[in-house]
């Protein structure tokens, strides 16, 4: 029945038409747990190798075990109340970055310029603080720094949007370039101002006009609580905006099918520009919070420190859903802080780079698992079994039919007619079977 010469691959893929949410989340949770274990195993191997090296150099080393690893990991993430607040604060900042780029991605506008947009926001805030602090009232400095931060962020986000809307310029590469232009501009600002204060660095620590800590002095979260609240509010607004507003719907239509958007009369260009303005506003706020509240300094290495890129990853992994983003950014920060806690106790470990390696492993596993959420593997043996089953039924039906016909034809004296009639029958019945296999292969 089946032409055996056709090469049937070991397995082939079909896209799942409906995603089983329970199964998807089980897979993702599994990936998270596996990634934590994988990080532990890799770390144990590295520590072992590193210790051998240290011993050969004549240094004393402490024995290390997986229990010690998890102890350090959880202490790094949840050790003291201040650490826990720091964890939530970092989650909030990453969440804000992810929220900022989400509308763009939903529209299939690949904005990887979050880094530059936030940095420009930070630059706006820094300019205001640098020139107004002490000279104007604190409240007006804060207001002007927010406005400048948002304006700078919006300008940086809208430039690629304008070119995309007008000439369809590749936004991935353009936003990437604008990141570096932003870095150079910030460098320019720092070096032209820092020469004056002789330190070579910008530092606004506790300057009048920056965002002060809130609450009593013994409250561990006093420098963090305000930002967490702001981000919580923004998250709610964006979740509602994306799900229930007309704008949010237009964004998803433009992303899903530009032609549909065109023919139902959505002004795609306006949507692109409007969405990027929104993104710029959020990046500006993020830059303001980082410069005026969190670090109270501005530099090109650590003020944004790759958050623009991590935000992109978080947004994508959470399927552009603001609520899932809370969870994903928490997990990412959990791994970052925990790894930094592990690195702290190891001789020669660089905490920043070690935690970015571990985060990388986590991302790899989560990305890979998305494949199994969205696609289904069908193995050769499965198909063969189904085909055999199917053909079996056909054969059975055919034999029954033939027997019935045979008994009818028996009365006819001409035997040749019987063969002629039966032959097309076989062809007819065979063809749906082979169609079926082809259809399965195509799926």
């Amino acid at each position, binding site marked *: 029945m089946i032409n055996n010469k056709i090469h049937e691959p070991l397995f082939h893929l079909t896209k799942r038409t409906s995603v089983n949410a329970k199964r998807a989340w089980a897979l993702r949770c599994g990936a998270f747990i596996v990634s934590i274990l994988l990080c532990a195993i890799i770390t144990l191997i590295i520590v072992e190798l*590193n210790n051998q090296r240290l011993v050969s150099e004549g240094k004393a080393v402490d024995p290390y075990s997986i229990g010690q690893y998890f102890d350090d990991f959880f202490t790094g993430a949840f050790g003291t109340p201040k650490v826990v607040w720091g964890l939530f604060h970092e989650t909030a900042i990453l969440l804000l970055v992810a929220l900022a780029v989400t509308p763009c991605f939903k529209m299939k506008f690949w904005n990887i310029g979050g880094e530059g947009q936030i940095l420009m926001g930070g630059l706006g805030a820094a300019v205001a603080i640098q020139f107004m602090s002490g000279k104007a009232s604190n409240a007006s400095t804060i207001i002007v720094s927010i406005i400048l931060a948002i304006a700078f962020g919006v300008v940086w986000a809208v430039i690629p949007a304008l070119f995309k809307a007008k000439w369809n310029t590749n936004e991935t590469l353009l936003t*990437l*370039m604008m990141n570096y232009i932003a870095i150079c501009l910030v*460098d*320019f600002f720092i070096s*032209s101002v820092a020469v004056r204060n002789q330190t070579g660095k910008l530092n606004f620590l506790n300057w009048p006009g920056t965002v002060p800590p809130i609450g009593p002095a013994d409250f561990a979260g006093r420098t963090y609580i305000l930002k967490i609240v702001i981000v919580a509010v923004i998250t709610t607004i964006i979740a509602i905006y994306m799900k229930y507003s007309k704008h949010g719907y237009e964004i998803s239509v433009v992303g899903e099918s530009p032609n549909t958007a065109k023919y139902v009369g959505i002004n795609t260009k306006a949507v692109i520009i409007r969405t990027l303005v929104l993104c710029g506003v959020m990046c500006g706020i993020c830059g303001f919070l980082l410069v005026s509240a969190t670090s109270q300094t501005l530099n090109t290495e650590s003020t944004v420190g790759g958050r623009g*890129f991590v935000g992109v990853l978080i947004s*994508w992994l959470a399927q552009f859903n603001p609520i899932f983003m809370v969870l994903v950014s928490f997990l990412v920060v959990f791994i970052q802080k925990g790894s930094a806690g592990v690195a702290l106790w190891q001789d020669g470990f660089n905490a920043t780079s070690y935690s970015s390696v571990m985060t990388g492993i986590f991302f790899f596993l989560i990305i890979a698992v*998305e494949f199994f959420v969205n696609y289904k593997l069908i193995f050769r043996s499965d198909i063969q079994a189904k085909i055999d089953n199917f053909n079996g039924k056909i054969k059975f039906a055919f034999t029954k039919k033939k027997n019935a016909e045979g008994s009818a034809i028996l009365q006819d004296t001409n035997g040749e007619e019987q063969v002629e009639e039966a032959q097309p029958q076989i062809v007819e019945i065979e063809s749906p079977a082979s169609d079926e296999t082809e259809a399965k292969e195509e799926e």
Partner: protein
Amino acid sequence: MFIKLLSDAIGFSAIFLYGSTGETIIEKSGHLNLGIPGIMCFGAVGGCIGADMAYKAGMGAFGTVFFGILFAMLFAGAMGLLYGIFTISLRCNQNVTGLTITTFGAGILNFWGAIVGSIGVFAKPSLYFTTSIFGEVGNDWFSQLFLSYGPLVYLAIIIAIVVSIVFKKSRTGLSLTAVGENPAAADAAGINVIKYKYVSCVLGAAIAGIGGMCYVLDYSAGSLEYIVDQLGWLAVALVIFSLWRPGIGILGSLIFAFLYLLPDQFLPKYVSMNAATSAIIKIIPYAVTALVLIIISFFNKRETQPPTALGVPYFREDR
């Protein structure tokens, strides 16, 4: 003096040239690999390990350079394969995968560097990379400009020329272009799309990896500095600047290297510079690339466009 700057720039340009040639090969197959900076970091790690092992095993100049290149290509190629598995077979988003590889690779380089130490750790093996392959060279302008480099610089130019010839003249190159422009049509024409994509992802990554090693062992003479990922982004920019042609990339990388070195190494000798002016001059390569990007989209000529299927995953069963 100008000769000195130019020869420095040529030496430095090799890093960009490796990165951009590699990325061009990958982009030609329709994959925008934003992991190139991370892959170059991997190449740097691999190259240093390979060259160091070969040097410690007592191999001469050839062995050290050979094993350096081999390991750089293996390490970077492994990351290219990982990228390939994720984006070709698992059909993950290319930008997301690339950014993850960049985070991961830069982390690995810094982490490894913090353990082995940074200044001058590979100074001895790097001597084989920095000394000219023509032995002693004279002080005249010709020898300084054309004969004074280590093997990696010549190799970069040779690879770029070979790749550009392959793209233009050979059947393989034309098929690769077809895969990047319209994979479904290429598939229908009997080109093995998946094979082309995999080979170009791995090969491109391996070539880019040599660039990372070239920075550590050639340009900075064996000291680990953590700007490889920054240079990697410039290499990605250079692909656009060179309009997806490695031949133009040779010139483009020279211009990029010149502009990169200009504010820190050249201008201070003639005019009094402060950090602010140098920061402004550093904008030029990025700004010019952004401008090129805008201009090519403005004129919208077919020859200068990115591969049409760039960034679009290919799934044969899709309609």
